């Protein structure tokens, strides 16, 4: 790039790109909407400028910040020091039009509020994020990047993020992506925020693609052993079957079917099994199933067809056999090695010792690339340093 020059023009009448301008812009676009009435905005934008000031001060003093939404995922990732930077007050749905299949919300908006709003219009979040507490916020959902049982069938958090407004480690507002599904202008820096654990920016707003509820949804259970069940699910997914969940609890395979009435009924009749309440899937989604209630909990992400490596007690698997929950007291290095050999990776999901690494170590070249990306967004290293890796 050439050195700094005068700022380029910007569309839509935005001025310096500051938060106040963006508010005006969003309000303008709402006012100009067609037949849909403007989406009511229950709480005024709060805290954005304040958050930016906090980041600028932290960057100047090189004091780390710990980004907090609803504080429901403090257990996840490495534990870090740092002054808490709360986004909980920066809340509210900014825009939601069911015919656009997108919801735009401030980071601190409770997940429950968004899901309730979508449900009113017969829509939902395709990636079915775990609800780890009533305070869970949409910003935290995106930053953690955790997806629920629909992941193999409907995509991950990152697949549904259409845009993000972030504050970088200099306290600058950056807006990437937008509210439209097809958008290839610039790098996908918005998807990059999904699962980045706040290391690449403080999320202020996100646009998320939403999906219509299926017309028919049923849950079935089968007595079938784990590996046989994985194979069976794999085969079912090789033909056009309306499956939206495949979970094994150590004893039984649980399938959820979702789609058009005819397709769901036909597959249900073919498979047989025992009908169970759809509510069963809440435990799978929210990680409250009794099988997962052990102490240290490892998550293995594996190719669907790779045999599950023998690294401890397999408690359950989800994601049609691609996500395995494991209890093990083996050294972390052994588990990482075993997962890598199977073509996947492992995360010490819950119960790590303070200061320990929890994510699968990156190859040296990849770690260096991560460090350069981190420095690009957060040169002073103040945004959740060490939350993902000690060296990041």
């Amino acid at each position: 790039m050439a050195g700094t020059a005068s700022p380029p023009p910007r569309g839509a009448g935005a001025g310096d790109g500051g938060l106040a301008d963006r508010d005006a812009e969003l309000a303008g676009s709402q006012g100009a909407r067609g037949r849909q009435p403007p989406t009511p905005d229950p709480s005024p934008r709060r805290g954005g400028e304040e958050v930016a000031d906090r980041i600028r001060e932290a960057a100047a003093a090189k004091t780390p910040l710990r980004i907090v939404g609803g504080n429901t995922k403090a257990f996840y990732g490495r534990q870090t020091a740092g002054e808490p930077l709360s986004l909980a007050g920066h809340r509210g749905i900014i825009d939601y039009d069911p015919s656009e299949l997108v919801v735009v919300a401030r980071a601190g908006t409770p997940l429950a509020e968004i899901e309730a709003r979508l449900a009113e219009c017969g829509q939902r979040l395709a990636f079915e994020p775990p609800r780890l507490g009533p305070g869970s916020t949409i910003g935290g959902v995106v930053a953690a990047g955790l997806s629920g049982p629909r992941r193999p069938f409907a995509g991950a958090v990152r697949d549904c993020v259409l845009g993000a407004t972030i504050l970088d480690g200099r306290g600058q507002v950056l807006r990437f992506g937008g509210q439209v599904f097809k958008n290839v202008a610039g790098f996908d820096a918005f998807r990059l925020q999904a699962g980045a654990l706040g290391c690449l920016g403080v999320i202020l707003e996100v646009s998320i693609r939403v999906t219509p509820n299926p017309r028919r949804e049923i849950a079935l259970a089968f007595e079938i052993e784990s590996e046989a069940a994985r194979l069976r699910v794999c085969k079912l997914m090789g033909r056009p079957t309306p499956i939206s969940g495949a979970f094994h609890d150590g004893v039984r395979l649980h399938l959820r079917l979702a789609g058009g009435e005819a397709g769901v009924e036909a597959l249900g009749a073919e498979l047989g099994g025992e009908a169970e309440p759809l509510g069963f899937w809440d435990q799978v989604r929210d990680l409250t199933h009794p099988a997962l209630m052990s102490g240290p909990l490892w998550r293995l992400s594996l190719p669907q067809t790779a045999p599950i490596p023998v690294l401890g007690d397999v408690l359950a698997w989800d994601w049609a056999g691609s996500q395995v929950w494991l209890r093990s007291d083996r050294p972390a290095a052994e588990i990482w090695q075993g997962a890598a050999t199977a073509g996947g990776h492992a995360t010490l999901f819950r119960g790590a010792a303070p200061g320990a690494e929890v994510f699968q170590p990156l190859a040296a070249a990849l770690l260096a690339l991560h460090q350069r990306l981190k420095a690009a967004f957060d040169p002073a290293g103040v945004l959740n340093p060490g939350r993902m890796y000690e060296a990041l």
Partner: protein
Amino acid sequence: MLDRFDPRLDGAFDPLDRERLIGRLSQLLPPDRLIVSTESMRPYESDGLAAYRSLPVAVALPVDADEAAVVLKVCRELNVPVVARGAGTGLSGGALPFPGSVLLALGKLNKILAIDPVARTARVQPGVRNLAISEAVKPYGLFYAPDPSSQLACSIGGNVAENAGGVHCLKYGLTVHNILKLEALTIEGERLTIGSDALDTPGFDLMALLTGSEGLLAVVTEITVRLLPLPADVQALLVAFPDAGCAAQAVADIIAAGITPGGLEMMDELALTAAEKFAHAGYPLDAAAILICECDGAASDAKAELAHVAEICRAAGASEVRHAKDEVERLLLWAGRKGAFPAMGRIAPDYYCIDGTIPRRRLPEVLARIGELSREYGLAVANVFHAGDGNLHPLILYDASADGELDRAEGLGGAILELCVAVGGTITGEHGVGREKINQMCVQFSTAELEAFAAIKAAFDPAGLLNPGKAVPTLARCAEFGAMHVHGGAVAHPELPRF
């Protein structure tokens, strides 16, 4: 014309020692895979955006990743820019050679390395054609979902570089949603594995970053794609509307009703008339707009869904609803749509395909404004639209041999893209920024955002050697573009060439 690169605005490199570069490369590649004569390089001087032409110093045609790596190493050492090229079908000039660069043509990496029907994946080299993947996996009842209109010719490597879409992405997603793993080379020639055969990887989502990065970050040498089972049944509907606004309303109503069609396409009067003359698809010539809606799934579900669509369209004011009786009729409906671009070649000497995305609800006003701009610039515009996902393809009709028409077409295209940004959309839905939309990036993004893109690039490619002058403009370029740019979607002097 944007095919004239300007060192001041696009990045300057060391003076080229041509003899030394060619000497080094000719030790690595046999003569038939290193093209250095001007005449032999002509086929590579442009991509699908044929109006832009420029020649590299050499065209290298590696046969595998190791050869590509050594070419990159030499270029890095000698500080020579590298432009990667797939099938050259891109419409934004992304593979336009940079003066003094080596064009790394990956067409010889064209093998399907493995198909795993159980895991529903295929491992392919970047030069494999998009459609060839679906053809190869069809015996297993599978397909590769993203289907850009150039799928017969375009390569999967190019699809990854552009994050290609197609007519079915409303339901099945873009390239980024349908790939699992990439093997890539850095500008240093080092191998990087991005993604995995599992559904996620530790660390940052570099797959998201590399997909659609237009050759600015790394060179992809192998791709593992995700395959989907072919749907049990596919049904299609043709709907005619007396007014384009009604058609737009119907699209919004279909989506709001909870229907996710496999495809939902719209054509305006000029486009459908031209397409009908070309393909004889049976389009109603008295319509102001038509929709083609396709639903797939279990046979009776697809039928029920389409019946619901028909009902919604009638309520929105449709003048005719026609159900494709059989596969022959369904394919005929699509033949018209897919022939829309070549059909333009029959009604105008040249056409310029624009690619912007808008929120669907803004469609009526955007179509009206495009109509006004078309009159202002004195060039006809036909609209073809991936209506389901708001991706607009206005086709500007012009005559390159008429004085100033190409410049006017470029000016009109720029104005349409700026209109897309102004209504909350984007300057490119699926064709990429490439060279073509480099100036409009200055409209869509702020200085700080462009600096962030530059910093991401520098994290991969510190010397800026990979595909310079594309996708991410320098601030110097934006300053210069801004000096002649007027806010509000209009260009001050459309008669002037814009760089």
